[in-house]
């Protein structure tokens, strides 16, 4: 019963309240809020920023998730070999995750600062001129993606490392005796055995990519010209900068639906290929 109360208080009630909110108009000084049906949703369809933000999010997810998973697996493979100072290396990879996001974003702000930032300083040694990485609409999203990959790969590596340590070493030895190359073993044995981890990581990565807000807050505020704006940050802006709470509620409902659909898809589609026990 206490669990049910908590669940209702913190999950169900806000969800229902959001859905209801999204069906009402904004209250102004002369007109109180009233029921408008799907008007907020129609407005959303006509809102070019909404579409832009959605596209940004799609690119962001596509650009960060496969790369960070691949990097995470590579790093875990590297650490999984018995190399000296293993725990130190493990710690180093994990650092991005234990650092507070805001601190991380500040570090990267220092990297990306035009002319005096680390990247431009190094580039200037090689004779390249400075570039405003976060100020240029064509480079701002990739710049944020690089930072996200860096952060997520270290986090996911820990899960992969744990999973790899659970694979009995005899499996590799048995395939080695059969003449399998390391790549064959990885492809036919290790990777399939890592599938449950990949599913878990994938769900997390997708959810994270739609939940990203703190980096944008520090680095770009979604700009320039919404080039780095993502859905959750747009909701945040709509609600707390423009005080369009009802429109923000409608956006939130869309976000919730997107997240649920993706989570369900992943579980049901990938589930079939994951469970071997």
């Amino acid at each position, binding site marked *: 019963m206490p669990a049910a109360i908590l669940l209702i208080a913190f999950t169900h009630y806000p969800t229902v309240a959001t859905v209801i909110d999204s069906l009402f108009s904004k209250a102004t000084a002369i007109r109180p809020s009233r029921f408008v049906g799907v008007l907020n949703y129609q407005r959303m369809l006509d809102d070019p920023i909404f579409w832009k933000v959605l596209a940004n999010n799609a690119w962001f997810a596509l650009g960060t998730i496969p790369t960070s998973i691949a990097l995470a697996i590579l790093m875990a493979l590297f650490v999984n070999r018995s190399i000296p100072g293993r725990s130190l290396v493990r710690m180093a990879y994990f650092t991005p995750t234990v650092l507070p996001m805001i601190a991380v974003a500040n570090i990267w702000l220092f990297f990306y600062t035009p002319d005096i930032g680390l990247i431009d300083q190094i580039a200037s040694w090689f004779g390249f001129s400075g570039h405003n990485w976060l100020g240029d609409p064509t480079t701002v999203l990739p710049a944020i993606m690089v930072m996200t990959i860096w952060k997520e790969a270290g986090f996911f590596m820990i899960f992969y490392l744990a999973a790899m340590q659970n694979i*009995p070493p*005899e*499996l590799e*030895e*048995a*395939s*080695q*005796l*059969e*003449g*399998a190359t390391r790549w*064959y073993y990885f492809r*036919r*044995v290790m990777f*399939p*055995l890592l*599938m449950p981890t990949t599913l878990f990581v994938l769900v997390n990565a997708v959810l994270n990519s739609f939940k990203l807000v703190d980096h944008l807050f520090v680095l770009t505020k979604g700009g320039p010209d919404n080039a780095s704006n993502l859905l959750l940050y747009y909701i945040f802006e709509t609600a707390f900068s423009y005080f369009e709470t009802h429109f923000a509620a409608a956006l939130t409902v869309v976000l919730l639906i997107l997240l649920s659909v993706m989570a369900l898809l992943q579980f049901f589609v990938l589930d079939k290929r994951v469970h*071997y*026990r």
Partner: protein
Amino acid sequence: MSGIDICELGKQWGAVVAVDRVSFRVAEGSLTVLLGPSGCGKSTILRLIAGLENVSSGSISIGGNEVTHLDAARRGVSMVFQSYALFPHLNVRENILFGLKVRKISQSERRSRLEEAAHMVGLEDLLNRKPAQLSGGQRQRVALARSIVSRRRVCLMDEPLSNLDAKLRAEMRDEIRSLQKKLGLTMLYVTHDQVEAMTMADQVVLLRKGRVEQTGRPHELYERPQTTFAAQFMGSPPMNLLKLDLIEDRSALAAACGGSLPAARFADGYVGVRPEHVRVGQSGLPVRVSATDYLGAETVLRMVHGGQTVFGKIDGHRRYNPGEQLHVSWPEEAVHRFGADGIRIEDPQRVSS
């Protein structure tokens, strides 16, 4: 040509010497058991032969070719792991055929080998199951089938039966042995269980702390152990070893040993007697009964003489009460003599006879 020749093989990890100048030969088509207590280097030797570990010193030849530093896959050996090493995401068929696929053996060849092997180990009806859906004995059979389809002449097994219950173990023991004979495999079989060694082996290599203690046919190890370690490792309960320094009444001992042995020959070292040769009677070495174990066909008596334990194995069911005073003796031929260093002293009379 698939005999194995091990010559002065050594393996070290830093200061740990796991294998120390081990030499032995496994004749083609025969079964050799590597026997020894846990941690004596059995698995390490097997892994060195398989090519899963790098050799520190010495050499390994298989079928007359030196393979000491050859790649594991090219040594032509198959291996059955203690944990079976089945791939949990693949079904029985895919597990058995894994190696053939790696080596790109044709589809039709794969099918015929699978059929043959599955039939041999009785897995025909389970080919589509995953390892998790099999019993311990069935998993063991999959591992065997994987080794059979490889058609490799040399098979290495690392304690393959240790995860099975006693009844199944006896069954699989016979099955592995008959399979080995039928296919003419050269097999090296690791175990710490002397019963497996006694029942299966053509040759036993007894190991202790990384060294070969004794090599020979099972009955040779049993009947003529070269050291006190070998004497006590083979047989259950182990051979009785009476430390001579601790026995004051030498004439009683001489009487127990058949009475004809001159007392001067019993200066120091050990006298060894197998429990089944111990006779309980009115004369010989005085002992006190400390426990009896009735095992059905026989009774194991545990007795004490001056702080040293003497086991006796007696036919049928006989009641002795703890604390009861008895005398034990044994035939003269049953006596094994070991020096203070634990090494067998051959009795010149007996060797010639």
